[in-house]
């Protein structure tokens, strides 16, 4: 549909009043919907994922599975999904800033699961091998966490793998 040429306020160049409206609109958004304070750190952590040939597995669901009497007993279940694989991880707080992670990949497969955890500037990594897709990291630090799932069956574990988007655990 072709419209007649518009003449009027919409066609004028932006002026100082427009700049002021946009500046105030920005200020209002900063008050009602500020960016989370940890988003820069999360983005930097994500940038350090490294392996570019990996398929990205995106956060699908995040739910509090059950909160115990004390905060430390809280567990959460996080699900990531990609075209080829679903990863579910239950995160339990075991006190002292430590976490226990129990997870599985579906469909079940012989995989190596690598966990990066920490922050952009200091991170630790852990690795477990599994034959049936189930994996446990019994005691790892809290922080930002990202999973790399390497498939053993392909024979080229670093080509067909999955990397999740980082989450805070």
């Amino acid at each position, binding site marked *: 549909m072709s419209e007649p040429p518009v003449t009027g306020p919409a066609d004028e160049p*932006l002026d100082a009043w427009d700049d002021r409206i*946009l500046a105030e609109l920005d200020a209002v958004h900063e008050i*009602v919907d500020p960016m989370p304070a940890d*988003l820069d750190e999360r983005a930097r952590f994500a940038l350090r994922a490294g392996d*570019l040939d990996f398929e990205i597995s995106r956060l699908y669901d995040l739910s509090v599975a059950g909160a115990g009497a004390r905060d430390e007993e809280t567990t959460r279940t996080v699900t990531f999904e990609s075209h080829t694989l679903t990863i579910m991880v239950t995160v339990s707080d075991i006190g002292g800033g430590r976490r226990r992670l129990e997870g599985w990949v579906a469909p079940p497969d012989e995989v190596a699961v690598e966990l990066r955890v920490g922050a952009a500037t200091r991170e630790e990594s852990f690795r477990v091998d599994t034959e049936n897709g189930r994996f446990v990291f019994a005691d790892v630090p809290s922080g930002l966490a990202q999973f790399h799932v390497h498939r053993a069956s392909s024979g080229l574990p670093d080509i067909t793998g999955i990397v999740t988007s980082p989450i805070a655990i």
Partner: protein
Amino acid sequence: MDADSTHDVDARGARSERLGDCLSRAKNGDVTALDAVVSELNPLLWRVARSQGLLAEDASDVVQTTWMELVRHMHAIRSPLALVGWLVAATRREAWRVNARRRKATWQDITTLDDQAGDEPEPVERLLTAERHRILWRLFARLPERCRALLSVIAKADRPDYAAISEALDMPHGSIGPTRGRCLAKLRALLLADPVWSAE
């Protein structure tokens, strides 16, 4: 050209040069060079994700994933201007994936504090202590959804990027920059008709 706009042009030129420098260092293998780009553009990408109707946790994930995608595709991005447009388009695309499988958050969700655990959602207006801000928010809410999405993002952007961002958001050509465009013209008319705003 007055002194102010000369200064602005210089500042924008410097920003563009800085982003371009970070991008080429990253292309040469130093991914930490993108840290500065993250600081500079994350607030814009957050706004894009939220303007697409995502709840906070999804919006954060979408922004992170966009940065991971950037590392894979940055070799095809030639200029700092293209970088901003690419990131905005990628964030929107990621947001679509999420919206495709979730109920889209309603304007009501966005105008109440959805992340607050309390029983009663607190109306956003209560956070706005300045009268002109409350008026602006109320009038802004009267705009069509696409206009709200565009303007909430543009408000966080630099003027030279307006046209590229508008295009990345799939708005018609001329929606904003260098001319005002219909969305901003409409908001401006509403504000001019308001006694508090027009008095200033």
